[in-house]
Each structure stands twice: as structure tokens, then as C-alpha cells.
């Protein structure tokens, strides 16, 4: 049976109708992982034994007639989300042998639905990057062209869904790390509103921006995963007290009469023509469905990358100060004093990009530079939020490209940090403003590489962006990657 392009809803039906057992389904994916992942390198750890055990428990629940939306559904997990008893490396030598003593809240929630965990997916080290090429263990390739990057930092999660090595995966998004790889790999990725999903057990990068979200084959499947992982958690003081809701509730409702804004700065120089044309042609399709396209402006977009890198690196330098090699993580064999041991452990454990961010963060926070950099970046954060508020007075959702280009060649940008940072221009403002956004495929370039568009919503209005993405997806034909 070819499960590679099946959606969660189809798998649900097959499981409930007993056309396939949870164990058989898990086995199909494990077989595909064994066959294709040597080339793709989307997983760091494959949890075959756990998947078999969980499939048994899921089958019992299915047999008892009490299955929920995700019971028996195989899911892959980004390797910065803590899984008790299963290595969680953050793709860093620093955490190469780290086995969490507890589960993240999202994992507890997925386990309570009796999902089947397939494994832990590769990523940029500590989620810092947009290519998955800074991973210390698995430099994931793009399923549409193995010579290109899958995007990042959740590149393993996006690539494994795209290649049919999982029907869905969890990623995390600090500045675009769910949406950009989803766009590069031709799948759908949702970054929820900050606070919608508990961050307890997500290895911290930039705590005011990080958010866990789903990557799946379409917006409807993303809604089903979000339904399972969202909700208030007393262990995360920033998790929202808003009641959980059904994020699939608006699916199928017409977009007629809806106002969709296109901020001109997102379509300016620096965005490849093929991407711009494809997203604007999607806007035209929405117009044909009866939506109104509203032109607008976000003047501060040109400062967004700087503000984002200052804030996120400042927070990262503080968050990563916990890695001392003593309580957990890589411990150097050299160092006679406490201080030497800590310096040696950190220097051996962290990769180049992580060190760069720590340096930048400490620069932004250091005496004499704080107001000029961190303080100004925080002021810009408020300005960008205010500009979004103004735009949302005119519209229901905002439509932008997800990335300035399609997936680029391995080693093309990855050695130039400035180029890498500037490529985040389309995604970072969403995190800065704590908004929800979904990326879905809106076209392919002449070489068949997927192009992604993002639909940005008002705070806690995930249901509407899912509805809008779904309306487009229903009239769009996905071309599966060549690897399958």
C-alpha cells in the first residue's frame, strides 16, 4: 500500500474502518523511512520499537470504539521537543546524548490521543538557521531536489512529511522555522499565535518568540494536530488562558466577502519574480472566489530582520548560558578549574552559528550597547505590532510570500550569515508581533520547486487562516516530490 501522500483524515477513516491496523500503518512508514531516509536524512532518531508499542495501544483504543482524531496516526517530532527516554539532541553535539527525564506538554497531549511516534527529526542546531545544514547529525536534503536545502530550522519535519515518511510532524517556529521549510518542501506549516501552544519541554531558543506548531499535507490536517496540542498549561506562564477550540470549524466556509491585505513591501525588490508572481496569482484566485484584495503598507519591514536578530540572539545568549557541561550536555575532558571546564565544554559542544548568535546576543545586551541595539529592537517590535494592528483594521487576513526564493542549493547561502539572515525577511515579523500564520504551496517554478505563500491572521484567529488556506488548497493540485 502506498501511504506516501495520504492525509490524516484518510488514514483516520482507514483505521476506523479496519482497512489497516495501527501496527501495519506504522510499519508502512518505518519501511519508507528505511528505504528513503539514507538519502534524505530527515530523521536523527527513528523510534521503531516505541512506534510498535504505541501502535498496539492505539489499536486497543480503536477497537474499543473510542479513538480520537489522532489515535494511531504516525507523527514525527522535531528534535528540540523533549521526549522522555528518547534522545533529544537539538541537532547539537552539546546534547548528543541528552535523554530528557520528562515529556514536553505537547508530547503528553499527543500521547493522550495515542499517536504513534515515528522518530525525532533533524533541524538547524538549536533551531538557529534556515537550511538544516547546521545540524551536527543529519544535514537534511530537499525531497524535490536532493541538491537543495529543505529550509529550516524544522527542515527534517518538513522534508519527512513532503517525502511521505510521516503524514504529519511537529516543528517549532521562532522566526519562520515552520513556515519556510514547509514552503521549500511543498507542504503546509502552521505557526500558532504566541501562547496558543505550551512551550514546556521545548528547548528554549528565544522564549518570547518560540512557538510549536504542525507541519502536514494540508491546512485541515494542521488544524487536527493543532486541536490536539493547543491549550492552557500551568507549566508555561505565557500559555494563553483562552479556551481550546476546534480549529477546523471554519473549513469549507466561503471566503467570499473576506478582505485579504497585500502589504506592498513584501512584494518589493529582493523577492524573486517567480515567487512574487505566484503569490499574486494566488491573490487573483481569492478574488475570483469573491474575496476583496486590499493594498496596504508595512513601512518598518526593512528593519524587521535587524530587530529580530537582536531580540532573538539576546534571548538565545541568555537561554544557552545554561549549557555548562555539568548537569547535562557535553562535558569536556579538559579543564582543571570550574571556569575552564565550562568554557571548554561550551566551545567543543556548540557549532559555529550558535556561537555567532551568542556573541551577537551578548553584544546587543552588553554595557554601552544595550539601548542602541536591544532597546531599539524592542521599540521596533512595538512599532511592527502597531503597524499590523493598523493593517488588520482594513482586512481579515494578510497574504505574503513565505520566502524570497524557492529552496536554494546546498552550500549556496549557508556560509554567508548575512545572506542567510536577510532571507528571513518574509517570516520574522509574524513572530515579532506574536501572530498566527500558515504557509501553503501556491505554485512551482520552472524546475518544479515548490513556492509557498503565507496567510497571516489576527491574534488567536487560527481558524480563519486555516479556512483561507484550505479554500486555496481545494483548488490546487500538489505535485509530489520525485523521491517518491
Amino acid at each position, binding site marked *: 500500500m502506498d501511504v506516501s501522500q495520504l492525509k490524516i483524515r484518510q488514514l483516520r477513516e482507514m483505521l476506523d474502518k479496519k482497512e489497516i491496523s495501527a501496527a501495519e500503518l506504522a510499519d508502512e512508514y518505518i519501511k519508507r523511512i528505511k528505504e528513503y531516509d539514507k538519502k534524505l536524512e530527515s530523521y536523527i532518531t527513528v523510534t521503531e520499537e516505541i512506534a510498535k508499542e504505541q501502535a498496539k495501544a492505539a489499536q486497543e483504543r480503536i477497537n474499543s470504539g473510542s479513538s480520537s482524531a489522532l489515535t494511531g496516526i504516525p507523527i514525527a517530532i522535531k528534535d528540540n521537543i523533549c521526549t522522555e527516554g528518547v534522545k533529544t539532541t537539538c541537532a547539537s553535539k552539546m546534547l548528543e546524548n541528552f535523554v530528557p527525564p*520528562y515529556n514536553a506538554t505537547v508530547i503528553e497531549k499527543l500521547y493522550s490521543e495515542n499517536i504513534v511516534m515515528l522518530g525525532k527529526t533533524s533541524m538547524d542546531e538549536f533551531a538557529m538557521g534556515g537550511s538544516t545544514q547546521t545540524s551536527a547529525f543529519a544535514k537534511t536534503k530537499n525531497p524535490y531536489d536532493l541538491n537543495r536545502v529543505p529550509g529550516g530550522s524544522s527542515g527534517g519535519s518538513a522534508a519527512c512529511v513532503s517525502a511521505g515518511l510521516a503524514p504529519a510532524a511537529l516543528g517549532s517556529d521562532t522566526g519562520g522555522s515552520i513556515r519556510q521549510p514547509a514552503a521549500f518542501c511543498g507542504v503546509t506549516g502552521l505557526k500558532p499565535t504566541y501562547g496558543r501552544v505550551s512551550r514546556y519541554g521545548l528547548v528554549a531558543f528565544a522564549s518570547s518568540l518560540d512557538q510549536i506548531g504542525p507541519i502536514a499535507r494540508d491546512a485541515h490536517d494542521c488544524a487536527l494536530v493543532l486541536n490536539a496540542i493547543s491549550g492552557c498549561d500551568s507549566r508555561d506562564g505565557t500559555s494563553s488562558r483562552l479556551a481550546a477550540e476546534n480549529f477546523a470549524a471554519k473549513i469549507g466556509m466561503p471566503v467570499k466577502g473576506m478582505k485579504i491585505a497585500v502589504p506592498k513591501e513584501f512584494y518589493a525588490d529582493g523577492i524573486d519574480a517567480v515567487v512574487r508572481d505566484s503569490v499574486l496569482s494566488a491573490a487573483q484566485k481569492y478574488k475570483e472566489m469573491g474575496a476583496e484584495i486590499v493594498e496596504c503598507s508595512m513601512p518598518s519591514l526593512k*528593519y524587521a530582520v*535587524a530587530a529580530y*536578530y537582536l531580540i532573538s540572539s539576546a534571548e538565545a545568549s541568555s537561554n544557552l548560558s545554561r549549557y555548562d557541561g*555539568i548537569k*547535562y550536555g557535553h562535558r569536556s575532558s579538559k*579543564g582543571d578549574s570550574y571556569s575552564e*571546564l565550562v568554557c571548554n565544554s561550551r566551545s567543543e559542544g556548540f557549532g559555529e552559528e550558535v556561537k555567532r548568535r551568542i556573541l551577537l546576543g551578548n553584544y546587543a545586551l552588553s554595557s554601552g550597547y544595550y539601548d542602541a541595539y536591544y532597546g*531599539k*529592537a524592542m521599540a521596533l517590535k512595538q512599532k511592527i505590532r502597531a503597524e499590523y494592528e493598523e493593517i488588520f483594521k482594513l482586512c481579515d487576513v494578510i497574504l505574503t510570500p513565505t520566502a524570497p526564493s524557492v529552496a536554494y542549493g546546498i552550500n549556496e547561502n549557508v556560509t554567508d550569515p548575512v545572506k542567510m539572515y536577510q532571507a528571513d525577511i518574509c517570516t520574522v515579523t509574524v513572530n515579532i508581533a506574536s501572530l498566527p500564520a500558515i504557509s501553503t504551496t501556491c505554485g512551482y517554478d520552472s524546475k518544479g520547486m515548490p513556492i509557498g505563500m503565507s496567510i497571516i491572521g489576527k491574534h488567536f484567529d487560527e481558524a480563519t487562516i486555516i479556512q483561507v488556506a484550505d479554500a486555496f488548497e481545494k483548488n490546487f493540485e500538489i505535485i509530489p516530490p520525485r523521491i517518491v
Partner: protein
Amino acid sequence: MDLDMVSYLAKLSKLNFTEDELKKAAADMTSIIDIMDTIKEVDIVYNPLADNKNMYLKDLREDIAKDSMETEKILQNAKHSDNCFVVPKVVE
């Protein structure tokens, strides 16, 4: 950014760099700071009072003692332990 500044940041960051690594880091940081400097042209000031509207401090948990994680679990990832974390001698 000069080598002295990068050395200072490396010290703050508790990271060791070889001389060649320091030179590369200084070059990288110089081009990164060039982008960061663009924000200096914006004339705005951060208002901390406007933030944190969504913090739920009034919903803090009751201060109730609960069992903590078992010592064995806490130490499971420490490379050197003896029913506690073991560090190099810090007092002569």
C-alpha cells in the same frame, strides 16, 4: 568589530576561540553589525509599560509543596555524578 571586542564578547559568552577563529568571528560580526546598525536611523524609544499585557501573573499557582523529580532522573544526564553533580574543586 575589532579583535579586542570579539575577545571581550567571547569571554562574556564563556567561549574559547583560536586566533584564526577570532579573526573569522570579527569579520562575520562586522558584516552582521552592519545590518543591525540600520535600526539606528529609526527615532523611537521602547515603552516597557506597553508590553507584557498578556502575562497572567494573577493566575500564579498556589505555593503548595509537591514531590520533586527523583534524584536519579535529575542526574541521568550528568557525566560526573555521585548522588550530586560533581564539578572540579572550587575551594582550595
